[in-house]
């Protein structure tokens, strides 16, 4: 697959001047919408996760007419519900030296200098308001005996800025947003459409003006029109088939928007989470994350000797290799995710992995239990231990957990400017679905922060600037018809193929290719191989997939097949992006570009840009580069030694 290089792009919305003042400036310069007009302005929000749920609720509060969509049976089930660890905020309640600037700095550095300074600074500023908002909504964050909020340090941060609600922070934050949303639904400002899947975007007169959705219960294809469309449809980690994402997570919404002109930013940036429960067999349908917080007290090790298959308890201390503590003495078991993941892969590649297939390392709590007592450990991690035992049938109090990295988060997504608007006017993208704030690697507990910052605070302000010129008049009928034609054509084709393999089996195979060739470690050779295999497999898919049932009614096999079809196209772009970026950075590790001791080696000279890909109907994607300048954080080689 080839590509051409197009015009560079610039984010023209970020104000100049001191970084602390930029968001204030933008808020002031943004046009306001007259309250009487708001009632006439329609906004579609697709997705009800932290980003979409908070956005729809807030836009409804502001007086806009909002339509909200999700594919689950209730907005409360969006995948944000699964986030365990916590949410960062620069509250500095501990007085441990945290500040907005430090959160900003950590995020830029953690993102391996591939994120925009202005955006990240704004994120750190807004983070403070998120906690206030959530607490006022009744989110039951952990508290100390004095009645004040508790925080912990998380994923490589040296300050304690992560707010949490046991191991269910995402759930509690999402329920807060969900309740705010339900309140607006009751108030009549938001119209909710559950079990509706967005299948295409309607563009009229150059503006995003609506969506085509399928009612998953009746099978009916519906058109919904509005003055602006917001996509908050989450990440696309499921392109790997096995990931920590929910089974329904998909790329369809953003991929369809991409095909209609929205640029796709940094598709290859994926985050592999180091602490997941290893795969147990071919039947595996998804991977389960064990919260990163476990690394605060657990010690990671493998046997010193290759192929040592003794039970962990029988391996004496001096025959164990606590490799993270050995290689990274300063951070030890708390190194960032990408580093921990790759280190695990390396020891397993050396043949020192444990468990089925040698794909696992131990996460051992024996020391913590000895030091703190079983009760204290149980208090802290009890629910995670239970979950582990339930899935593996092993008791982690007596036998160390086995963990292995798994695909977890996608930093890439639709390209957006400072206002969170994509390259299609009127199409806004928020949450994990956009590429914005995390650069090449996301810090733990920052995705929740970003989703809520976008939804509660940033988008509701910036979208007004766009809508101040609305309402935008009639939508061209041809545009609607064309989109409807695309959608029904695709469904018709899937249903009529009648081959002899299921969509899931193709998805599994695609996932294996991606994991093998575009996973934790990528090489030119592997990526070229993937770029060869993917089109072949896609070809076979379209000729040999079997989708039972009909267009009408609930047809879960059809839903799945449609998603897999889009994953094929996305997978190709991911590999192309990974191939073109010959440097290593953050979650993107090119084996060709590493330091002597095996760390990711950036090439700032040539790659300090966002790769924004434009779809071209002829099939040759066009690369637009957005240069990244660092005024406030000095670019350095990331080092956690």
């Amino acid at each position, binding site marked *: 697959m080839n590509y051409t290089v197009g015009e560079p792009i610039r984010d023209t919305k970020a104000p100049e001047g001191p970084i602390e003042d930029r968001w204030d400036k933008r808020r002031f310069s943004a046009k306001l919408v007259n309250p009487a007009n708001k009632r006439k302005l329609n906004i579609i929000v697709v997705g009800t996760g932290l980003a979409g749920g908070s956005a729809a609720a807030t836009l409804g509060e502001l007086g806009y007419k909002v339509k909200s969509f999700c594919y689950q049976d209730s907005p409360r*089930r969006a995948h944000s*519900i699964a986030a365990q660890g916590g949410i960062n905020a620069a509250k500095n*309640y501990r007085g441990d030296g945290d500040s907005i600037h430090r959160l900003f700095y950590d995020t830029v550095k953690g993102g391996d200098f591939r994120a925009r300074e202005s955006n990240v600074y704004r994120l750190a500023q807004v983070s403070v308001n998120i906690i206030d908002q959530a607490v006022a909504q009744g989110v039951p964050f952990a508290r100390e005996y004095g009645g004040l909020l508790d925080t912990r340090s998380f994923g490589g941060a040296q300050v304690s800025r992560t707010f949490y609600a046991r191991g*269910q922070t995402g759930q509690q934050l999402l329920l807060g947003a969900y309740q705010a949303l*339900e309140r607006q639904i009751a108030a009549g400002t938001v119209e909710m459409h559950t079990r509706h899947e967005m299948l295409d975007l309607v563009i009229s007169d150059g503006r995003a003006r609506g969506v085509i959705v399928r009612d998953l219960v009746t099978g009916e294809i519906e058109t919904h029109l509005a003055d602006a469309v917001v996509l908050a449809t989450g990440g696309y980690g499921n392109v790997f088939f096995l990931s920590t994402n929910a089974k329904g997570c998909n790329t369809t919404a953003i991929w369809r928007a991409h095909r209609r002109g929205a640029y796709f930013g940094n598709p290859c940036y994926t985050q592999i989470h180091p602490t997941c429960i290893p795969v147990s067999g071919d039947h595996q*349908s998804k991977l389960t994350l064990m919260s990163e917080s476990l690394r605060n007290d657990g010690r990671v090790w493998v046997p010193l000797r290759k192929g040592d298959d003794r039970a962990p308890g029988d391996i004496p201390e001096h025959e164990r290799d606590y490799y993270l503590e050995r290689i990274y003495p300063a951070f030890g078991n708390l190194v960032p995710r990408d580093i921990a993941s790759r280190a695990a892969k390396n020891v397993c590649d050396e043949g020192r992995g444990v468990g089925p297939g040698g794909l696992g390392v131990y996460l051992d709590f024996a020391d913590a239990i000895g030091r703190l007592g079983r009760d204290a450990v149980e208090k802290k991690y009890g629910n995670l231990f239970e979950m582990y035992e339930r899935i*593996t049938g092993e008791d982690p109090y007596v036998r160390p957990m086995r963990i292995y990295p798994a695909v977890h988060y996608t930093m890439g997504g639709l390209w957006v400017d400072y206002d969170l608007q994509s390259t299609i006017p009127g199409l806004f993208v928020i949450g994990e679905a956009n590429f914005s704030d995390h650069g090449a690697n996301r810090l733990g507990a920052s995705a929740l922060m970003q989703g809520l910052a976008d939804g509660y605070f940033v988008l509701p302000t910036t979208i007004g600037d766009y809508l101040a010129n609305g309402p935008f008049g009639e939508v061209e009928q041809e545009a609607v018809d064309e989109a409807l034609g695309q959608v029904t054509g695709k469904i018709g084709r899937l249903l009529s193929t009648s081959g002899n393999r299921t969509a899931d089996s193709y998805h599994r195979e695609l996932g294996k290719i991606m994991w093998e060739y575009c996973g934790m470690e990528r090489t030119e050779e592997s990526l070229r191989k993937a770029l060869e295999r993917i089109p072949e497999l896609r070809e076979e898919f379209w000729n040999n997939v079997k989708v039972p049932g009909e267009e009408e*009614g609930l047809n879960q096999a059809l839903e799945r097949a449609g998603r897999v079809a889009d994953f094929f196209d996305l997978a190709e772009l991911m590999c192309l992006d990974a191939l073109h970026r010959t440097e290593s950075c953050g979650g993107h590790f090119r084996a060709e570009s590493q330091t002597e001791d095996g760390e990711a080696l950036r090439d700032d000279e040539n790659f300090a840009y966002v790769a924004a890909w434009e779809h071209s109907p002829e099939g040759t994607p066009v690369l637009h580069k957005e240069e990244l300048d660092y005024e406030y954080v000095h670019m350095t080689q990331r080092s956690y030694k």
Partner: protein
Amino acid sequence: MNLTLKVWRQNGPADSGRMVTYQVEDVSPDMSFLEMLDVLNERLILEGDDPVAFDHDCREGICGMCGMVINGVAHGEQRATTTCQLHMRHFKDGDTVTIEPWRAAPFPVVKDLVVDRGAFDRIIQAGGFISVPAGSAPDAHSIPVKKENADDAFDAATCIGCGACVAACPNGSASLFTAAKITHLGLLPQGQPERDSRVVAMVEQMDLEGFGGCTNTGECTAVCPKGISLDVISQMNRDYLKAAN
């Protein structure tokens, strides 16, 4: 291991539905219950049959999407476990497993094992929130909350809205679900201004949706994957008596 499954098949709300028997072979003990059904469905698709429809998403016990009545027990006999987190190691070779959807009039069957739980959302709409527009909140530390209260509120707030409580309750009551939210918000200082109106409105909505009344049989808490305690129902009752008088 090999299992005999008796699965409720129903093509839509209008169809009367029936139990259909399937054999599944080579089930691995490491599989989750849903993975076992995935295997069955893959086979059904290839055989040209309609796969069994069931709801699921996160497959890690938190989204509340999955749920079926397994051998007469909501989410299966394993305690404090959602269907997606139930593993086949708890079954024996040769077992017959009966699988049915949640049964309750306010949860009409959409297809096979999929039911419509929209009634829960409407109960929340009636008052399961604290009214606070974005940006209007005071500093989070301006109101300390007693740790005990925060912890109890959290316990109630862990409800995942799966509906197993309704499925298990002989009265088809949604009390545990409704009370969990009332208790969560009622225990926090932020929830006080709307406390009385909330409980009256939510109880009323619960009745309007057609759920039954609670007669304290305790089946709900026994199957609740999050172990929501009967305390919340007691709390709801107390709040209701106070608010309604």
